[in-house]
């Protein structure tokens, strides 16, 4: 296997959880809900995926458990912000703090225990294609799913009636309500979808990326996923670009260290966060782009008139 292939493979692995979490959050935000709890849902997905893979010996059940726990966790957020109309920013933070605490509590028994790896699925024939085969057809199921998810979300948002409803709820909840659309139901489903994606993204970290449990192992990836949605100006295809860009930054950091450059490792570790700020600045400078795509009701609570 060539060096380029090896590097690209690690980039793919680093980008997959970002892509999945960001796509989930994109759908949530398109419905007008800002869920800052991505980090908390991801870490809950990571620990529940890891735990259930060990309990059952089957990493697929682990991944499924992570999705379910992600949904359950997001329901907490949905109940507060949608049914009780609490402040979305503060509630999202609460979700993150709670997730970090609960996962630490649950994960204490798993520290230092080797996990169960989600083995790659080798697609017959296609995986024999030089270069491309190794990259695209010898991956784990979550990678394949992330690509399907990308097309699925694009198709759903822009080609289906349900997607249109979701976007209209996000753009003007009062108008959508007047038209007889159920704002509450739409938003609940969108938040749950986001939770499922964050949970799965977390499971990718603990079942593929590193097959062990480390406290706070998400290390801010949930927040980077949130930034990716802004970077992508709420468009799924641009999320793909962003996720792979950030995956590459994270990996470049490792390779720069390996090549022996005399840069302190801490500076390199800070690179993804610095890159996030730079990218946010560049994107937000383009007011027209952001204004045009930001869901107008984003972050605003909804209490029906009548």
């Amino acid at each position, binding site marked *: 296997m060539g060096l380029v292939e090896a590097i690209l493979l690690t980039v793919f692995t680093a980008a997959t959880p970002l892509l999945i979490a960001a796509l989930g959050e994109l759908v949530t935000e398109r419905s007008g809900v800002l869920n*800052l709890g991505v980090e*908390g849902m991801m870490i809950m997905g990571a620990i529940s995926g890891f735990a259930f893979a060990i309990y059952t010996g089957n990493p697929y059940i682990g991944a499924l458990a992570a999705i379910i726990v992600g949904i359950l966790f997001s329901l*907490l957020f949905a109940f*507060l912000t949608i*049914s*009780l*109309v*609490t*402040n*979305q*920013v*503060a*509630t999202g*933070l*609460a*979700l*993150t*703090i*709670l*997730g*970090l*605490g*609960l996962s*630490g*509590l649950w994960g*204490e028994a798993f520290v230092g225990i080797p996990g169960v790896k989600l083995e790659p699925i080798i697609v017959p024939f296609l995986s024999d294609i030089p270069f491309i085969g190794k990259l695209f057809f010898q991956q784990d199921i979550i990678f394949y799913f992330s690509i399907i998810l990308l097309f699925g979300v694009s198709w759903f948002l822009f080609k289906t009636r349900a997607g249109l409803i979701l976007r209209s709820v996000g753009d003007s909840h*009062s108008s959508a309500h007047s038209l007889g659309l*159920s704002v*509450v*139901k739409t938003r*609940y489903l969108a938040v749950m979808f986001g939770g499922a994606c964050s949970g799965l993204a977390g499971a990718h970290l603990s079942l593929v990326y590193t097959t062990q449990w480390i*406290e706070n192992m998400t290390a*801010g990836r949930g*927040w980077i996923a*949130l*930034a990716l949605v*802004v970077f992508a100006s709420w468009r799924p295809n641009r999320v793909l670009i962003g996720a792979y860009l950030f995956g590459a930054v994270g990996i470049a950091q490792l390779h720069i260290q390996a090549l022996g450059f005399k840069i*302190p490792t*801490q*500076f390199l*570790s*800070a690179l993804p*966060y*610095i890159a*996030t*700020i730079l990218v*946010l*600045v560049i994107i*937000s*400078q383009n*007011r027209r782009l*952001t204004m045009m795509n930001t869901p107008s009701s984003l*972050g*605003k*609570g*909804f*209490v*029906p*008139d*009548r």
Partner: protein
Amino acid sequence: MQPDFSIRLEKRGSASTLFAYFSPFIALGLMLFFGGILFAIMGHNPLHALYVYFLEPLMDTWSLHELAIKASPLILIATGLCLCFRSGNWNIGAEGQLIMGGIAGAALPVFFPTYTSFSILPLMLIFGILGGMAWAFIPAFLKNRFGTNEILTSLMLVYIAGHFLDWIVRGPFRNPQGFNFPGSISFSEWQVLPEMLSSGRMHYGMLFAIIGVLVVWFLLSKTMKGFEIQVIGQAPRAGRFAGFSPKGTTIFVFLVSGAFAGLAGIAEVSGAIQQLRPSISPGYGFIAIIVAFLGRLNPLGIFAAGIVLALSFLGGEAVQISLNVTDKIANVFQGLLLFFVLACDTLIHHKISFGHSWRFYNKGATHGAR
């Protein structure tokens, strides 16, 4: 047709004063109840565990001093944050501002170890304040100049500050006689924030917290600037008509909260730890957000809330020692508490009715997120 989501909110004509006072207590009660359930699931006697967590630390002088040491940064940071939140600016990077304050203040004793006179401590505090302000200025500037979302930038700056601290205590600030352990030299007499009372470790950080509370209380309730902050937060349009500057306010509140967080950072480094280490805070900057909300964004309420959340840290250490439960449980209690506080706050502005009946909601209006 409405779907089967059977919780109905009806906006109250005016905020309920009853719930405004009681909602934090209801939230605390709920947190204790669910915390008890959690302990029971983990196989502990819930009443005993809650006793060990929340009451035992209040029983002796030593732990009361520890409580004050943990409460002072929380109170100080949260009073600064309440200005931000009241004006609609989401500074969630106080943790980073605290770290930078600690680093900036510690630079003096590290580079001038022989400079020991009464003047060094005030200088260290000023450096700490400036360090916190500088770090807080970045998200405020980016928000004003480019419209960049301050939630994400201030948070990213926490991670950057954390890595910077890790580098500095292993690199330029490392104690040459420290046997390669990460950490600066231990501060000497004049460089340490002294104890306030002879009975224990509590340092003057508590006094700073009290002053901070009073200053912000005065600012909010007695000055034009405080009024401006609240108008811009609650009714930005009205604020613009009145000629208030949203951008100026953003800079102002970020600088004040950065200054407070920076002061809390250097007070922690100089008073409690007395050297710079790879980790100088167990997340005070994040937990202060809970303090601000539990205190209902009111400086006096924040004082009480700071003590409650300090107790959540102390109790976490207590159950770790006597019940062998990881101190991560503190995060669980803190997260639960914020959930309940937010949920109970809904009661202040809304009547809640359950079931499908339509008659409960004949009036009310769509409104923004508080």
